[in-house]
């Protein structure tokens, strides 16, 4: 089984000042699966993914891609490993149009090396094609992001992440700010991506999302891994119980009820 893991994180720890954000956390991502990463606020979900994307550097632990240890010190290292993260804040330049955001830092250019001229035609054409392929409802790649709805921005961020054949996608709460229809469209997109061979880690507070489209779900609590469940074998209650009580089952019944009604 071990050879199937496209990403393995082993014994990852990270401390911010006096806060131990992650404590000896392992994570395994299989090729072509959607792994849900769930847990309460401050469970360490985002920190773990930021370490994989190069935004943070772990204090200790190792990262293996396809079984080989890699060193990820910044976003460029991560990108070289085929990892793209879609941040909660999306990391888009709202003052630029869709195509320029998708290609930022990787523009098609021609002409002089010191003053490279944008091949806008190619960029707009490929952006339009990408939007169509992902069934993203944006009328033109020339639209500026600042004039778009939250869902459309989320789609642009997703398109940007996969435009260059990243195999590993990390998504941080992509549906959190979306309305019902837009969230559904996005979840469908994520499932399509999985079906076309991408491996996805989906951080979410909405457990039903992950039960609908995910393959496995990993639960973090207080910076520690609580367990990994197969989606096909569990229900909402099982996941929520693990989120709220952890392995030890320390917290009260009321918390679990609250979480269930929210989820």
């Amino acid at each position, binding site marked *: 089984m071990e050879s199937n893991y496209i990403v393995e994180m082993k014994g990852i720890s990270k401390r911010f000042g006096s806060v131990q954000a992650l404590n000896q956390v392992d994570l395994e991502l299989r090729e072509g699966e959607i792994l849900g990463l769930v847990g309460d606020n401050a469970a360490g979900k985002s920190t773990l993914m930021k370490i994989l994307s190069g935004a943070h550097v772990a204090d200790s632990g190792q990262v293996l891609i396809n079984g080989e240890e890699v060193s990820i010190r910044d976003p460029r290292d991560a990108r070289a490993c085929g990892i793209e993260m879609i941040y909660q804040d999306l990391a888009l330049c709202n003052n630029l149009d869709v195509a320029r955001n998708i290609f930022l830092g990787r523009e098609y250019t021609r002409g002089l090396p010191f003053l490279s001229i944008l091949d806008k035609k190619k960029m707009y054409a490929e952006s339009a094609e990408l939007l169509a392929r992902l069934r993203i409802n944006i009328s033109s790649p020339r639209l500026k992001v*600042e004039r778009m709805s939250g869902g459309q921005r989320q789609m642009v961020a997703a398109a940007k992440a996969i435009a260059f054949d990243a195999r590993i996608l990390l998504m941080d709460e992509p549906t959190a700010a979306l309305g*019902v229809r837009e969230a*559904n469209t996005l979840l469908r997109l994520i499932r399509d991506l999985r079906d076309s061979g991408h491996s996805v880690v989906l951080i979410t507070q909405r457990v039903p999302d992950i039960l*609908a489209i995910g393959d496995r779900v990993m639960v973090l609590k207080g910076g520690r891994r609580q367990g990994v469940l197969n989606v096909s074998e569990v229900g909402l209650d099982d996941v929520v119980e693990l989120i709220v009580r952890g392995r030890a089952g320390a917290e009260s019944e009321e918390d679990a009820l609250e979480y269930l009604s929210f989820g």
Partner: protein
Amino acid sequence: MADNPTPEHQSTAESGLVEEPPQGPAGWPAGRWGNLLQWLIEYRAFVLLGLALTYAVLFVPFFATERNITQMTTQFSIDGIISIGLTVLMIAWGIDLGVGATLALAGVVFALSQDLGVPVAALLGILAGAGVGLVNGFVVTKMRVNFFIATLSTMVAVKGLTFIISDETTIYGHAEGFGWMGSAKLGIFEFPALAFFAIGIITHWIMTQTSLGTYWYAIGGNSDASHRAGLNVNLIFALSFVVAGLCSGIAGVLLASRAVSANPGVGRDTALFAISATVIGGTSLFGGVGNVLGAVAGVMFLGVVRNSLNLLGVSAYWQWVIQGVILVSVVVSDVYMNRRRRTA
């Protein structure tokens, strides 16, 4: 798992969240008036220029004479070249308060080295300007000094240096062709005006057609996202200071050539004029927004106003008041626009 049904989003449906409209042009006042307002603010420089030109041609005596047009365009063009450099810098979310001091330094360097031949001297003057920009860029990006403080400090240092190397006196041009750049003429336009329009067009092209131009917009819009996209944000930001310095250098050389002398004390009001014109031209003080053609129109608008007030015999002090009022109103509209943008 591929045969999963379409995920039903019960959670949000149950908690009663309202679906947002699929395409909401976020943050703008709705309807026709909102669009008109946005259009007016975005193209304010062209609108203002049109109004000012119409008024001047109709009501200001001697405005529409060949002699006046030639003089006026040369006058606003020298400061205007600086505005173009500042536009690039402000789009990348910086500012340079010391452009006037750089202008003076470039002129003095040009005049001091005129015996090397005018082309070489001109190049040295321009490089001196670019050098000041490089120092600013270094101090801001490597030393992490706020750009207001950094450029204010280099301004003082550059001013001192200019007075030291010029020995506090005006240096006259004696080399052959020293005054050519300031006075050569094509049609009704003198060389500085032609240089201004040419630099405007080239810079506009760089900002809209090259990856470097996109990067300047990108770091001004969201430097964090630009970094995560793999851009060398510091280098790109430092380069925008070099562009502002370079433009100030070109303006300094042209000014000295036109006056056939370099005065170490010039450039006191340059920053005010150049920044005003840039902001009138639609460039935001908050980065990421602006365009070079707007700045060109902003320069022309302020030039026409200044020239008209002179022809009408309005005193210099009142001109300051008027320029200040124009700047304040434009800045207020920029702050208003920025608030809308950020809440979007």
